[in-house]
């Protein structure tokens, strides 16, 4: 209602606002199918267990339906459809991420929540630097543990985990009305 922060005025630049003095950003990592994705932690309002979702006819395919989050009707998207991944049955590990979409929360179904990563600047490759075109949803690639300092600490022999960093705003831009 009226006390909602003026999100419309929020910068539309890639969400890298949570940068602390050491240049570390926080990402919430989750699993979609076999892949590991992450969203900037600051864009995630809440993580929900799967509530009852009501189907809405005549919606884009990626819209699973609507659910009531403390009295507010909230749209739930299937991120797998959005990212053109095959849809498997949802398991008990699945969760809904409530993400801020211009002042209104939108739910995104993910298969499993993994963990929060604090990524240093040199652990993130921005897509802009890669020069690839892609869907525009991907902000970059995160390689936790790739930082030279961390490698020093851990011996450097670990299998590298790769996170696909999503741009929350780009993901939802169709839903801004």
């Amino acid at each position: 209602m009226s006390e909602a922060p003026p999100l419309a005025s929020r910068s539309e630049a890639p969400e890298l606002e949570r940068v602390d003095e050491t240049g570390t950003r926080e990402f919430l990592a989750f699993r979609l199918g076999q892949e590991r994705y992450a969203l900037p932690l600051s864009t995630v309002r809440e993580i929900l267990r799967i509530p009852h979702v009501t189907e809405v006819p005549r919606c884009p395919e990626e819209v699973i339906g609507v659910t009531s989050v403390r009295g507010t009707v909230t749209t739930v998207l299937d991120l797998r459809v959005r990212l053109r991944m095959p849809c498997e049955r949802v398991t008990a590990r699945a969760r809904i991420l409530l993400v801020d979409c211009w002042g209104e929360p939108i739910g995104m179904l993910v298969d499993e929540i993994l963990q929060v990563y604090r990524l240093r600047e040199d652990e993130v490759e921005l897509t802009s630097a890669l020069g690839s075109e892609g869907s525009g949803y991907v902000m970059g690639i995160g390689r936790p543990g790739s930082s030279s300092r961390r490698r020093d600490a851990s011996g450097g022999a670990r299998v590298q985990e790769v996170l696909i960093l999503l741009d929350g705003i780009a993901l939802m831009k169709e839903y801004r009305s």
Partner: protein
Amino acid sequence: MSQSEDDRARAEFLAEAQEIVEALSRDLLVLEDANKRGLTLPETVNDVFRGVHTLKGLAGMFSFERIAELAHVFEDLLEALRLGRVPMDGGVLDLLFEGAEGFQHLLAGAQRSDAAVDVDVEGLLARIAALEPGAASQRDILSDYDIDPNILSVLTEYEEHRLRSSFEQGRTVYRFRLQLALDAIDTSLAGLKERCSGVAEVLSYLPSSSAEVKDAIEIELLIATRVSPAELRETLDRPDGLLIPIERKRRDSIAPRMDAEAGMAAASLNQAAPEVEPSEDTGSLRSLANVVRVDIGKLDHLMNVVGELGSLRSSFVQLVERLRAHSTDRELIFEAQRIQRGFQRHLGEVQSSVLGVRMVPLSQLFDKLAVIVRQLARDQGKEVQLVVKGAETEVDKLIAEEIADPLMHIVRNAIDHGIESRDERERLDKPKVSNFGIRAFPRGNHVVIELRDDGRGIDPSLVRETAVRRGVLSEHEVGDMTPEDLMEVIFRPGFSTREVVTGISGRGVGMDVVKTNINRLGGAVEIASELGRGTTFTITLPVTLAIISALLFQTRGRVMAISLSAVREALRFEDYALRTVEGREVLDLRGETLPLCRLAELFGLSDGKSVPERMLRTATRRRRVHGGEAQQADDAEVFSSEPPVKSRSGAGFVIVIVVGNRRLGLVVDRLLGQQDIVIKPLGRSLSSVPGISGATDLGDQRLVLVVDAPAIIDEALLGRWLRPSLGGQA
């Protein structure tokens, strides 16, 4: 003052200023109307004066300098009008209207914090200055009458002006002397004034000191009237008062009665007068303080809370039922039932008062429309007489806000294109002044607004031609359309253009937007037109959006709701004969043909479980086990108070919905009963799902979609053109 406080104060000022300017425009229309009939309404001029004066003060306080300057200029003009230094005529009225527009303009600029918005205050000032003909040089009529100079000496300039013009209009002025109890003097005077209204004008009241009675005061009123003394006496209803006419002087009569009594009266008059005058002001202040301006968001919140209480009530009822079934403690059961009934009753009261608070009279809107009608007619040199009826009809504030633009659009169209020019009307032998009627009246849970002009009307053959030319419909499609159906074509996207000479066209937005906006409110718009005789738009709106009675039903396993105000009846499907007419299923209903629509097919609902249910089933089942709660999977359990009505053969039910004059039978599987629901919007991200007006929470965290009856009727009866490019259905 902090930034937000500052902003709030500004918003508060802008809202109040807006109200004042609206009242101002309204009063000006009244004055104009009176002026045409040769009347002057001093009270209304005073109201306008007071409004502008208040505006000036407020604007000065919040440093809106241009508004204050404009107000100042107008205050001067109104002062001159009040005192009769400037006669009320068309020119002055135009200036006043221009001033009101100027205020609107400046306020709109202030609202947007757009400093560039300005109004030519100096130009207006010069034109006002040109109006005032200097000091009146004519002979003073007052010198012809035998008036006590002591009275004249204490009259304000305004009162003197009123006295003078009363004589000029040939009215008789009486002095009415009576004693009033000191403690009730205000109410007695107000009562007297009220009794006089329409019959006589109380010009002034002056305390006189001649009375020696304790706790009372002798007052002398100056009353101007055309009625006989006897009639006036009866009107005043104070047999104890003394009525003395002020006579016309005989030539060279010298009658100054400067006796001691009069001298004393004059002395006390001088002191007392200022105390009497403000009493009028305190009256208006009091009424202002009785009104609270509330942010509509707060009311929405209140409404939400009331909605939640409604859900609690349902649980409460179920709890009492369980208690009745399982407990043998009759006293406890009785007590629980008593409390539950009390709760229900009070909740009902809270619900209706919250709804009542949100209601505003349509006059708020119609007043604005009247100003627009006047402006447009003046700009185009057309003479339009606006007749407004039922302006006191109330609707939800939100509806009043949302309907403003569509109404404005219809009015604009009617005057721009529907109503002919004066010459053309004369040629057609129509009355020179055209008649534009706006009528509102309640009908059940709805409010109907009718806008009727007596202009050209719409030519169906031109509509047909335009629709084909613009590619809205094919030659084949328009071929077998009735003239009535053709009228509906006007609301289709892509139809409205300026080229449609017949009357309905738009500036930027078309009639399709008008229709969409009205439908979004759960309303309907219909058009009827007679070529050469005029066009009537009939808008049907729900009285409120917040809480509605709904019929819950099930189709292909999904529970949905539909506003009961659109439902006429529900029938068992198999009891009626189904026929197919031109590929469309219809039902013979008591001799009438009812077109049918299978909702599940219209919505493309797949068989069996809904998509989210299929997909999420595993997760949900697991959660149930985890939570250990006895959650029922069957939708029917949600409405446990009554068992769902199930049709015998599974053929289903037909819900007959009526919007405006169109009817449609919705074929559904089961009826689940009636419930009061709070409709919530689907949220901005899904705001434009055709056929769905929102969702409601039935209190168990499950959302139920609410079907948009007007949209469904349109879609089913008029084809698929409403459906936008949203994909995704089966």
